[in-house]
């Protein structure tokens, strides 16, 4: 796909729901060893969007406020998620609570169907996406590589899709790159963000080389031995992958084609063939 349509000319920024997002790396805020490390990793990553959640607060506790102050100080756009929601109703109510708390209508929509894989319940996801779009949300659905689900989500009002690379937290990278390539080809004009399962910067670079518009990851940075350094590595990988895509990757082939000119090869004799 890249070879057929080389990307020449000016580089376009990432635009999501009409907003210019300054980085193609989106970062989660969970599972860091400490708030300080999280804050430093966010800065090192240059992330354009941070994901957050809403959770039950203990009586008379102030955990939420402290976290919110820390996040706001980073000055990065915030996107709450509906992590843990199993039904459309839970997701819609959670999204509304998040919208009020975080004062944004951006929502990473998760409707989870299985406790082991944490994979999306595509049926519930589409239903929730329709309800939330109707309620004025800008929905970023966490989905699979399923083309039909993608079409239903777009029909329900989503303008961005976030297909998984692999199950959340597995770090396995792009489990089904063939299907992801299809998704990219079927929806050339839709911003597509690989979300979940990324483990290494090479995975992020691969996603970008396929032409995906951005990547969203959390565990890969938070659970690294040195999260701050890893955040920097991911920023570089996303940059490299995107540049490669825009530069037009070479065509691949099965058999070798010499790079060094054949003409003038020393000791060359026709009979030796």
């Amino acid at each position, binding site marked *: 796909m890249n070879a057929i349509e080389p990307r020449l000319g000016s580089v376009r920024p990432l635009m999501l729901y009409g907003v210019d997002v300054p980085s193609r790396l989106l970062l989660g805020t969970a599972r860091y060893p400490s708030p300080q490390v999280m804050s430093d990793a966010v800065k090192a990553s240059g992330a354009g969007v941070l994901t*957050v*959640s809403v*959770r039950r607060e203990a*009586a*008379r506790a102030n955990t939420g406020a402290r976290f919110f102050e820390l996040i706001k100080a980073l000055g990065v756009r915030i996107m709450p998620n509906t*992590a843990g929601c199993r039904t459309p109703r839970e997701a819609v109510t959670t999204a509304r609570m998040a919208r009020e708390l975080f004062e944004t209508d951006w929502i990473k929509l998760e409707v989870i169907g299985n406790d082991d894989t944490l994979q999306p319940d595509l049926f519930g996801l589409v239903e929730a996406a329709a309800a939330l779009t109707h309620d004025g949300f800008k929905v970023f659905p966490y989905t699979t590589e399923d083309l039909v689900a993608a079409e239903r989500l777009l029909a329900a009002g989503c303008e961005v899709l976030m297909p998984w690379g692999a199950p959340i937290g597995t770090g396995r990278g792009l489990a089904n790159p063939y299907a992801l390539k299809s998704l990219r080809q079927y929806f050339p004009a839709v911003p597509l963000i690989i979300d979940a399962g990324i483990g290494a910067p090479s995975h992020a670079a691969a996603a970008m080389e396929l032409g995906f518009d951005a990547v969203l990851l959390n565990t890969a940075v938070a659970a690294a031995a040195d999260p701050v350094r890893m955040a920097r590595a991911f920023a570089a990988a996303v940059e490299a992958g995107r540049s490669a895509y825009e530069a037009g990757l070479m065509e691949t082939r099965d058999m070798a084609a010499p790079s060094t000119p054949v003409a003038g090869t020393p000791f060359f004799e026709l009979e030796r063939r």
Partner: protein
Amino acid sequence: MQRHAGQQIGIVVNGEAIVTSARTLAELVAEQGFTETGVATAVNGDFVPRQARGEVPLTPDARVEIVAPRQGG
């Protein structure tokens, strides 16, 4: 349902059974020591906007969610 001031009922807050004399969701939020703007609320599965909490009465066995910002992926 009209309750006298001080009369207690059993409700569920964040999955835990408690007794409260709060008559409305707003009173409950205050009683539990939360700030108005620091939390968001739902009753029996439905979101209740902050400004509406004073109008939402608490009934026996009501399931209330009180949530705050948290880390997330």
